């Protein structure tokens, strides 16, 4: 075994003269063991081949000892490969693992995918080609238009013209149950056991994921797409406030409902923008956003539409509780004093943006929106851009002491993303082909484009969004050009740590970092207990049809009454009106509705 030969070989690999497969075979021929290939690669500062023969940034990275050694627990015997700077301490998420072709002979899969302009032509896409070379699996793409995918998919199924795989069609639980029970979708339990590698690691690290993709009959009909986007889980409950006005008025960040009221009042009356006109809008929002997802937190746990929660294992609704009424009283009080703009219940996001972007002195004081982009234009290139002055208000503490921020524990896992049908002759290949997409390099390439051109591995000392050692870094501003990535389609394992391990460019900071920090500081600490959130349920066809109808009626009524109670069209202080409101739900079939949910919940979660 000669180290010189080894170095030469690695050089060849980086310059693109030989494929990864040839490299591994020749390295073994030279006497390297599988694990020392990993070391060799790590020593030369790269976990992957750089395209176009260039010596990409990875090849010139200083030699590292590999940082924290990877455990590669899920692949016993496989080579341990690390990214150049190693994994951040305590990292949980996808890892590099050397992949050999899935089959020696070229195998073909027929895969249905949604049309996407960013992906471009699926067959000519750069990631598609890279992944075909890596797996030796050729894909015959059948593209269905994204928006009406299900119309087309139903026509296919009805005519018996089914593909091997449906990818990113996102079948609902009820559809999985239906097609699964008809035998059209293949149960994957055993296949995953036998052929899954990365997905087993995913299941270990996200134990909920396996539970969430298992149907009530105990079968797994789909492989999940996992995107654990930390700030998303509190997105519906974020309140934004214009910080300079607080400073101008000498007020501190409000913490209770009363303090918040006082702040809004000062915004309205004391002309904080200093233009000698009372043109300030203390609080508003666009029609689709809810005030309830923020304010109700000061009275009880509110998950937002469809407003169902678990109380000691019992499914219950929040909109007919006395605490809900207290919340409505509070919102009505704000409205009566003119602190909530009338337009909040009617204006479109575009209209709100016009208020947020108003030229000259800002007029928008506070707003209940998902993120800055929902109420003004985010200019990431300017240091003093207006969006940076809007900060979050922590979830308020109510008079009764409640302070709960709705946190979505189950949002990360999208079931139904990858389904194998009975038409598939090589289900093992189909499983391995999806499984390989959960691997770190595959994720980065599918999400961020070409290694060495669009992104690279981070160097030692570059910090990620969470302030720890970063794992990878974008070279071009995301997203990559059309046709070089998969536009977040396919199946991926983007764990929270993975997302936060993206290096932050100090020269070009994006809004990801502040969004993460605000969420961590103002909402995460007040999140509800996980046992209170109603997890996604697998209903059968009858249950789904029955609840679907009632859900529409009830949800519309709740939304309508939220607005009416708030603006005083219906008097919330009047007991008669409140009782009428509560009893209307009984007429709408609330008890049946809850019972069906309870049955579906018990069938899956109460063993």
């Amino acid at each position, binding site marked *: 075994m000669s180290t010189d030969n080894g170095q030469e070989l690695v050089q060849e690999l980086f310059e693109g003269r030989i494929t990864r497969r040839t490299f591994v075979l020749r390295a073994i021929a030279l006497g390297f063991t599988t694990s020392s290939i990993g070391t060799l690669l790590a020593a030369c500062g790269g976990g992957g081949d750089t395209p176009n023969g260039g010596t990409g940034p990875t090849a010139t990275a200083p030699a590292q000892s590999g940082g924290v050694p990877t455990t590669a627990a899920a692949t016993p015997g496989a080579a341990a490969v690390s990214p150049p700077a190693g994994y951040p301490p305590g990292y949980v998420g996808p890892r590099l693992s050397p992949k050999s072709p899935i089959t020696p002979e070229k195998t073909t899969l027929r895969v*249905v995918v949604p*049309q*996407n*302009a960013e992906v*471009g*032509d*699926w*067959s000519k896409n750069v990631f598609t080609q890279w992944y075909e070379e890596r797996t030796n699996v050729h894909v015959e*793409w*059948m*593209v*269905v*238009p*994204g*928006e*009406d995918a299900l*119309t*087309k998919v139903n*026509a296919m199924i*009805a*005519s018996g*013209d089914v593909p091997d795989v449906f990818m990113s069609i996102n079948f609902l639980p009820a559809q999985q149950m239906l097609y699964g029970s008809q035998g059209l979708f293949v149960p994957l339990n055993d296949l995953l056991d036998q052929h899954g590698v990365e997905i087993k690691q995913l299941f270990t690290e996200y134990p909920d994921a396996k539970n969430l993709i298992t149907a009530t009959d105990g079968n797994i009909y789909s492989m999940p797409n996992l*995107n654990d*986007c930390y*700030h*998303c889980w509190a*997105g*519906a409950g974020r309140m934004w406030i214009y910080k300079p006005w607080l400073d101008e008025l000498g007020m501190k960040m409000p913490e209770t409902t009363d303090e918040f009221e006082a702040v809004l009042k000062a915004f309205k009356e004391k002309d904080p923008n200093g233009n000698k006109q009372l043109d300030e809008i203390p609080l508003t929002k666009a029609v*689709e*956003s809810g005030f309830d997802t923020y304010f109700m937190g000061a009275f009880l746990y509110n998950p*937002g539409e469809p407003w169902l929660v678990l109380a000691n294992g019992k499914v219950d609704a929040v909109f007919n509780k006395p605490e809900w009424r207290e919340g409505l009283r509070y919102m009505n009080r704000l409205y009566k004093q003119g602190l909530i703009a009338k337009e909040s219940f009617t204006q479109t*996001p*575009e209209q709100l*943006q*016009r208020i947020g*972007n*108003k*030229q000259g002195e800002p007029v928008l004081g506070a707003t209940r*929106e*998902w*993120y800055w*982009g*929902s109420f003004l*234009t*985010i200019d990431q290139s300017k240091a003093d851009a207006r969006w940076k002055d809007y900060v979050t208000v922590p979830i308020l503490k109510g008079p009764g002491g409640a302070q709960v921020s709705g946190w979505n524990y189950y*949002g990360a896992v*999208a079931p139904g993303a990858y389904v194998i049908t009975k038409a598939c002759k090589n289900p093992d290949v189909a499983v391995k082909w999806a499984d390989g997409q959960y691997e770190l390099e595959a994720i980065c390439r599918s999400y961020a484009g070409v290694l060495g051109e669009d992104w690279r591995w981070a160097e030692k000392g570059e910090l990620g969004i969470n302030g720890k050692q970063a794992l990878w870094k974008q070279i071009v501003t*995301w*997203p990559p*050009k*059309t*046709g070089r990535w998969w536009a*977040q389609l396919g199946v991926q394992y983007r764990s929270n740590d993975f997302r936060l391990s993206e290096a932050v460019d100090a020269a070009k900071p*994006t*809004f*990801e970092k502040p*969004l993460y920090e605000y969420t961590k500081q103002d909402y995460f600490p007040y999140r509800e207990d996980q046992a209170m959130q109603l997890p996604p349920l697998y209903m059968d066809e009858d249950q789904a049809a029955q609840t679907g109808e009632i859900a529409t009626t009830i949800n519309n009524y709740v939304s309508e009454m939220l607005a009416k109670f708030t603006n005083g069209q219906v008097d919330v202080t009047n007991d008669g009106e409140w009782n009428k409101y509560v009893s209307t739900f009984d007429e709408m079939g609330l008890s049946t509705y809850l019972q069906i949910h309870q049955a579906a919940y018990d069938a899956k979660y109460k063993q």
Partner: protein
Amino acid sequence: MAATTIKPTRSDRIFDVWNYALLTIFFIIVLYPLVYVASASFSNPDAVISGQMWLLPVQPTLDGYRAVFSYESIVQGYLNSVFYVVAGTVVNVFMTILAGYALSRRDLYGRNMFMFLFVFTTLFSGGLIPTYLVVDDVGLLNTRWALIVPTALAVYNVIITRTFFQVTIPHELLEAAQIDGSDDFTFLRRVVLPLSGPIIAVNVLFYAIGHWNQFFSALIYLTNESLFPLQLVLREILVQNSVDPSQMSDATELLRRQHLRDLLKYSLIVVASLPPLMLYPFVQKYFVKGLIVGSLKG
């Protein structure tokens, strides 16, 4: 000075003033959205969103158009759509004239029965899945022909074409031609067609716009992206980029889509409406005439 024209009365003048005023208002109502879209397509999207742009382009830029044509699928879709419009319309007009002419002849044996069969299909159809199965079985699925053959004839157009022939081509003309030794095809080609400019124009416009706006057949029958017409690509870009934060799990993605949508929205509309707008002036002078004549005695 001798008055050679009748002096308009006071009430006539008032009528004229009102007339012009009203027509001007209608004109502006119709024109403004068009001008707005055109100007917005040349403006900086931020200026459009913040409401600075209301009539003329603000901070003029071609970014929107550059972004539109940076999508390979748009260019491809454009070419495909042009093909579908040209090929489809040729087939349509050919079939419609043949059917319309035959049905306009009083001496056609079983004319009422044929007419009944045609009209029957406008009221009853097999539905989506059976049609899909037929298209699949005859091997048209996922080919360009799937957008042309199943829609080769529109019964409504056959009816107006038939009526047009009945009204404008007198039976005596046929008799005269027959005396001169003409057969049916010669008569159709040498006598009927030269007299039928308006109805051909109407058919071309109807069919061409139908093909240009067509997306449902493509949505159902095609899975090969290189065959997708423009409308399908446009739909994908605009509809998928409509932003619903609660459905979106990622703020970066949200911002990207929002930006993309703002950038592309207006230039896409302009690009997609251009061909029909260019076609219209050429057929417009026949359009009203053809429609009115054809609709008589429907």
